[in-house]
């Protein structure tokens, strides 16, 4: 194995984390989608590096799927969605951004300590990045919590999947192909359903502000 490989994977992992933070701090939906696509690209990069370093061809396939789905298809759908829904403007977050980033930093520390015992069990050379993967998942969650508009929440959901995927590849060199395909399909279908759902929300409330969903509860 090339000694450079772990470092390159680390670099991609750091890029993933950096992008997760950038997404946390981004107000504009269009930029958010681009960041999401970049995150997909970082994921592809790390998967390809791992495939090349450990000589596992199935990782190439999963990288290809990731590329097709997360770098091309989903961003395209999202851009289309944003155009159709006409929600290109800035979205204020519920908590101010520096506070969110401080919470994010605490999450990183937490995730790393959480991942420490797990990653010692793993034999993967990229196990050190498990903490980053976990942190990405938690931060996507945080992003979903702190956005009041539906589209950023969908992006948060999708980027959470990115984190999970990265966790799988870094800890165990990826999931079995069947599972991976299944997840990919799930995400795609989920995206379509969410898209339909978003149109429904707007039909109903003339807005994508999910505050309106609060009215749906029974009084």
């Amino acid at each position: 194995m090339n000694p450079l490989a772990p470092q390159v994977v680390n670099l991609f992992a750091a890029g993933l984390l950096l992008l997760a933070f950038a997404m946390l701090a981004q107000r504009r939906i269009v930029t958010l989608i681009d960041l999401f696509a970049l995150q997909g690209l970082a994921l592809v990069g790390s998967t390809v590096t791992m495939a090349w370093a450990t000589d596992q061809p199935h990782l190439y396939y999963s990288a290809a799927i990731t590329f097709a789905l997360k770098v091309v298809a989903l961003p395209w759908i999202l851009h289309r969605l944003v155009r159709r829904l006409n929600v290109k403007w800035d979205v204020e977050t519920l908590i101010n951004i520096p506070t969110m980033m401080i919470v994010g930093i605490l999450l990183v520390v937490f995730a790393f300590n959480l991942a420490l015992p797990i990653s010692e069990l793993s034999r993967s050379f990229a196990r050190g990045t498990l903490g980053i993967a976990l942190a990405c998942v938690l931060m996507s969650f945080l992003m979903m919590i702190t956005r009041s508009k539906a589209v950023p929440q969908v992006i948060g959901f999708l980027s959470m999947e990115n984190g999970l995927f990265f966790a799988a590849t870094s800890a165990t060199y990826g999931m079995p192909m069947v599972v991976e395909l299944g997840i990919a399909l799930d995400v795609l279908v989920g995206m379509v359903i969410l898209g339909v759902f978003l149109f429904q929300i707007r039909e109903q409330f003339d807005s994508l502000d999910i505050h309106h969903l609060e009215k749906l509860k029974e009084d």
Partner: protein
Amino acid sequence: MNVEGILLQLTALVVALVLGPLLTGWVNQCRAWLQGRRAPPLTQPFRALHKLFWKESVMAHEASAMYRAAPYVVFSCMLLACMIIPTLTTNLPLAPAADAIALVGLFALARLFVSLAAMDVGTAFGSLGARREMLVGFLAEPAFLMVLFTASLISSSTSLATIVSSLAHREIAILPSLAFAGVAFTMVSLAENARVPVDNPATHLELTMIHEALLLEYSGRHLALMEWAASLKLFAYSCAGLALFFPWGVAQANDRVALALALPVLVAKLAAGGFLLALIETILAKMRIFRVPEFLATAFLLGVLALLVRLLLGA
């Protein structure tokens, strides 16, 4: 300390004094090209300085000694910073006098004097500028220090010379922690050098100006010194950035060949960096002043994150 050391130190001084205004001129040129305007000549900043030095200095009746002393203090702070940062070689006799923390301290000292001098005349714009400058400073300084700390942790030293020589010998191009630090550093240096998303030195708009508001009352030789100090600051920041993120080409001790090559390499790197700066300035829009704290807080937190990534990944 020997004769060679003193000569190198003097060379660094002269290089800073000459390249500083040239870098400012170069950035202005690039920006003009990118924006489709006719560019001023490269030496325009020198001509402006020369003109200003000849003009008499007009001072407000109220101006006190602080106002007159500040340009000299600020200028020598910046020059000192340029003499400490390894621009051409790490073998500078003055380098041990100040490490990374003291470097930030020097910038902060200059900032304190600039702000106090701006408040000295007692105009509305002066105190407004001072307030905004300190606002930028109190977030940018910690962010810059976090960037430097990340590099210090990598090389387990806060001495700039040691940082550069250990970073130049690493095996991988970009360490992940340095990627974070690099983003933070870019944000900080834009803010610190009064560049576009934070400040626009080309306008005198009340709503936006920071750097110009500070210098509003200055004229003649005092203004010249302040402007020269500002271009030295840009030079110092650029060199610090190059030293941290692209340390190749800085000569180590007793390496004559590298020393001969150091100046052309530095000029090339600065030219590339200056172009990039002009590009950023052209692409980005000036942000509202209320957004500046958020921008800088983000830079600061990215710096902290760089530090954490360094400790967590060990990379």
